[in-house]
């Protein structure tokens, strides 16, 4: 892609390269651009959501620019883009649940912050600490999947397989010494879970949904959204940093 300003091909360092050395102007522009992405994904239906075989029908992708903003530009930019996501969700809401700013706006502020914290933390942590945390996460996810399995065997088996696959992938990546891939996926998954957990938590707290319904929606929506977020976030950051070794796509 040719840069609009100078007319020459730009290397993608600077704003895309890392959190260090980003000037205030760069942060403002990044926040604006990612906010524009959120609004675009919300307005264009083909890419705003992905049909999944669940009751509500669709897993949304609007949280992905927020996660990417947090990881690429820091917690403040992540919070601002989260604010845009929340405001947009509030203004476009047609159900009473999301017409409440405490449910629509407040939880969304944390998506970018959590994504940044996990991403930056995982990049800087020593490998031993990462292994311990990863083992803990796999254990927790596995025991949760086992509980689900006890109540609903088919769903539980699927989740058990997913957890085992995720655990195997984690082990491979940590062993192969590619903490960046783990950091990106962890940041994306936890950022997505922040969105799911906090929004549904506020909805349950304020009485909009019963707790069982909240758990059901959290599982059926939260997990596909987390997977989608991880896939897209790692693809984008891989394209920017060359982590996966593939060529950047120049359209």
């Amino acid at each position, binding site marked *: *892609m040719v*840069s*609009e*300003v*100078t007319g020459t091909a*730009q290397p*993608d360092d*600077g*704003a*895309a390269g890392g959190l260090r050395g980003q*000037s*205030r*102007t*760069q942060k*403002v*522009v*990044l*926040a*604006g*651009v990612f*906010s*524009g*992405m959120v*609004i*675009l994904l919300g*307005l*264009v*239906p*083909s*890419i705003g959501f*992905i*049909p*999944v*075989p669940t009751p509500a*029908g669709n897993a949304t*992708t609007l949280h*992905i*620019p927020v996660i990417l903003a947090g990881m690429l530009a820091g917690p403040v930019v992540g919070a601002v883009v989260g604010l*845009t996501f929340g405001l947009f969700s509030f*203004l476009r*809401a*047609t*159900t*009473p649940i999301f*017409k409440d700013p405490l449910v629509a706006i407040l939880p969304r502020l944390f998506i970018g912050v959590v994504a940044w914290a996990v991403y930056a933390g995982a990049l800087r942590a020593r490998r031993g600490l990462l292994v311990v945390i990863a083992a803990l996460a796999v254990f927790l996810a596995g025991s949760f999947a086992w509980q689900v399995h006890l109540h609903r065997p088919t769903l539980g088996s699927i989740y058990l397989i997913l957890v085992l696959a995720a655990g195997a992938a984690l082990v491979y990546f940590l062993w192969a010494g590619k903490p960046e891939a783990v950091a990106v996926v962890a940041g994306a998954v936890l950022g997505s879970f922040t969105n799911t957990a906090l929004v549904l938590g506020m909805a349950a707290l304020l*009485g*909009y*949904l*019963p707790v069982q319904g909240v758990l059901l929606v959290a599982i059926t929506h939260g997990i*596909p959204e987390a997977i*989608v977020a991880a*896939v*897209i976030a790692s*693809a*984008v950051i891989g*394209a*920017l940093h060359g982590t996966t070794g593939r060529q*950047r*796509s120049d*359209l």
Partner: protein
Amino acid sequence: MQDLDFLRHITLGQYFPRRSVVHALDPRVKLLGVALLAAAISFNASYAANAILLAACFAIALLSLISPLYILSGLRPAIPFIVFFALIQVAFFTGPYGPTLHPRQLLHLGALVVTDSGVRLVLISVARLLELWLLTSLLTNTTPISTLAGGLESLLRPLSALGFPSHDLALVFTLALRFLPVFALELEDTMKAQISRGVQWNSGRLAFVANSRRIAALLVPLFVDALRRAEGLATAMEARCYVSRRRSIGGKGHTSLLYLRFQARDWVALAALSAFAGALILCRNAFPW
């Protein structure tokens, strides 16, 4: 295959040009008015207050020469969801809500208990939805978005004395809106390029993996392009000596093209809205019903 024309999707809140009182008001008055009325809506859980508020929202719509029923027709596709959630709420909500301290049971069907508090919660939620939908729609129907952004920045300007980056926030909002058509066109081009190279568009609920891969293939070039544009824009702005308000050259801060000034009718409207919302908030416990 769905339409490939995305530009017509990105009208963010339709603007209807009319010669009405509301259209001519300062955007700051409209923003503050919506905020005040939203506060009044949040604090009032009685049927009487919500009837008054709903009537007020209808009145504002009529004052702006826009039909309130037309605005509410935008909710029509969501009616099944609203009904569904209402039924769930009324069946499972058992706590107290509103003026009554002890909820009275109205229906008892095994595990499902319907109380008058539950019914109140559902009806008030729907009323609030209608009121907020009318207010937010009217805000964008009577004010162009760029004017709204200027009004928002002006309102936040006092906070910048405390270090709150109000100018930067307003710029973020403006940039987001500025880039919408750019991204929409970019997305269109990417989609057309991929389709012309034979990408299959599987619709259908079990094509989850294929669909997410397709969307990833669309979003990745979009993000990469967006980041390159962001970098170029930031460089251009800095090359033209853009700095944030606090550290601006000469210390005077930024001037803007849009110059907002209150007039008599703005003060009158603001006073009326403040009095109305204030009265409703202060007397929220005085409504018996």
